[in-house]
């Protein structure tokens, strides 16, 4: 499955938001929303991006879409670097990359009927006659589990789950290859969330879609993803296949994250690693490894040198000094660790 060629390749992507202060709005610093992120997505697979709020996972999605202009880096889609395209060319590419948003209500124009909302991508990309378009709208309404008569209604007349189906239908209208789903189920009730996740899986098979699935819920991500990237403070700290990640997390943050998720089984006794404190501000990230302020295995080197994402095992990369040469030099610490892990 992973032998497919990459559909999307992201290399050294950075997105800094300037912080302006003072009399003339001088830039005094940057919020490093994404800081040197690299990964690739193969055709037909689902890459999950997981992390806590403020880690930059949504910004990553939007930067790939070129909704935000990247500060630096390469976003290569089907061999084309999107960052180098003109505005018009990007618009054309968006036929192939679509997005599904978190808030299914906010992402639908309240003054448009569902029919109009679904038709719009077709109009924008010149998708056939009015009649064809309407036919296609009805077809996709059915595909996502809604009915023809829903086309005449307005977004507020639908429940959250139905709206998310509409959002998904809209993304499918132009037959895209890649769908970036930004927290598509986090606003939904559990029973509805399951429906939407199932729908997304079905659609993936049917239309050979590639997903980038951004979420904070580790359970959901695990369920839907083939590979998972864990982000912390604008950086990917670990990326690997999902089975591997959940079975054998390498980064202390991943470990803490996994252990923090409450499991709906009172008999399941896990060893809880509760990390203290909060995520630092991305405007003023800690030096060295961004996680060192909360890391239970902090070494001296962690405060000084930023660890690089490197392949620890085949297909399993991690950015942590526990697995780097610099880290290994910190032998005393390493020894202590061996006992505790």
């Amino acid at each position, binding site marked *: 499955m992973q032998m497919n060629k990459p559909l999307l390749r992201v290399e050294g992507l950075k997105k800094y938001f300037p912080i302006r202060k003072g009399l003339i709005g001088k830039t005094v610093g940057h919020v490093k929303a994404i800081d040197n992120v690299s990964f690739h997505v193969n055709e037909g697979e689902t890459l999950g991006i997981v992390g806590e709020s403020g880690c930059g996972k949504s910004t990553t999605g*939007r930067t790939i*879409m070129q*909704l935000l202009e990247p500060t630096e880096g390469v976003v290569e889609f089907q061999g084309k670097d999107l960052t180098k395209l003109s505005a018009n060319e*990007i*618009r*054309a*590419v*968006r*036929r192939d990359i*679509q*997005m599904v*948003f*978190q*808030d299914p209500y*906010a*992402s*639908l*124009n*309240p*003054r448009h*009927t569902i029919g109009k909302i679904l038709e*719009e*991508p077709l109009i*924008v*990309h010149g998708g056939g006659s009015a009649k064809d378009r309407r036919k296609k709208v009805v077809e996709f309404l059915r595909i996502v589990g809604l009915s023809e008569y829903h086309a*005449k*209604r*307005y977004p*507020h*007349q*639908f*429940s*959250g789950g*139905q*709206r998310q189906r509409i*959002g998904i239908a*809209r993304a499918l209208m*132009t037959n895209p290859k890649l769908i970036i789903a930004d927290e598509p189920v986090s606003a939904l009730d559990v029973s509805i969330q399951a429906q939407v996740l199932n729908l997304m899986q079905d659609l993936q098979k049917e239309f050979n879609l590639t997903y980038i699935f951004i979420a904070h819920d580790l359970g959901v991500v695990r369920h839907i993803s083939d590979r998972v990237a864990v982000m912390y403070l604008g950086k990917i700290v670990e990326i690997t296949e999902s089975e591997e990640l959940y079975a054998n997390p390498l980064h202390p943050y991943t470990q803490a994250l996994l252990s923090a998720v409450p499991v709906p089984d009172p008999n399941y006794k896990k060893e809880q690693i509760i990390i203290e404190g909060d995520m630092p501000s991305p405007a003023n990230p800690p030096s060295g490894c961004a996680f060192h302020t909360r890391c239970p295995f902090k070494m001296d080197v962690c405060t000084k040198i930023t660890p690089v994402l490197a392949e620890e095992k085949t297909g399993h990369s991690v950015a942590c000094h526990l697995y780097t040469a610099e880290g290994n030099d910190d032998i005393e610490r390493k020894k202590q660790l061996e006992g505790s892990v």
Partner: protein
Amino acid sequence: MSEFTPKVDGVAEAKLEKTTGPWREAWVGFRKSKVAVVGAVIVIFFILLALFGPLVTKEGINEQLMTDRLQPPSSEYWFGTDDFGRDIFSRIIHGARISLSVGFFSVVGSIVVGSFLGIIAGYYGRWIDTIISRIFDIMLAFPSILLAIAIVSVLGPSLRNALIAIAIINVPNFGRLIRSKVLSIKEDEYITAAKAIGMKDFRILFSHILPNSMAPVIVQGTLAIATAILEAAALGFLGLGAEAPYPEWGKMLADSKDYLQNAPWTMIFPGLAIMLTVLGFNLMGDGLRDALDPKMKS
């Protein structure tokens, strides 16, 4: 909001087969508000008066009958006569046409110009925004009535020029409103969604941003008509508005303020007419706000 607030969305499957668009919903909400309905009734009453009143009143509202000067209200002259012996009742009815037109057209004028500037400023931002916003700031820094007086002074006092002056002083209000609305809608997720689809800016502007910023404009517009009528009356009162012999209410007040003690009806009725009309628009505006744009503040 917390979950106990009944949400509309659940209704969908169970009850509504009929399409209810946002405008229809607003209409339903509007009808429910007693205040709004009272306002609408008053406004419609004055609109009908303006349209058809002149057909039923006495001929020659400007006909002067010096022998009948300052007659108190009677069966012949319902509201009495003024110092030219003219029938105040007929004049007030004709005056409705003037006040309503001034209110309506000045506000339409400010909306058109204000929207244009506001959209440009809000959507394109950068230096265009800076310039337009600064101009708005400058205009808003003047007390509006002073600015109106100055403008009328330049153009010469007349009804038309009063209308223009009122339109001008209201432009920055609408401009700012639209600008802020555009700015906030621009951040809405469905705009991002539209961009993600690959939609062009121009189309986003006209198909998404404009229709969604109309609600507050309609509300503000209704309220602004109320203010505009008051401002026109104030200019008329200062002698900078309607020229004689137009039966403009503010001018009628100014003309009769010397008779307050001898012939109070000459003052009371035009004053009441102004107040009622303005009240009508204010009530209606309030109702519209609740129906269209519950989050907007006065």
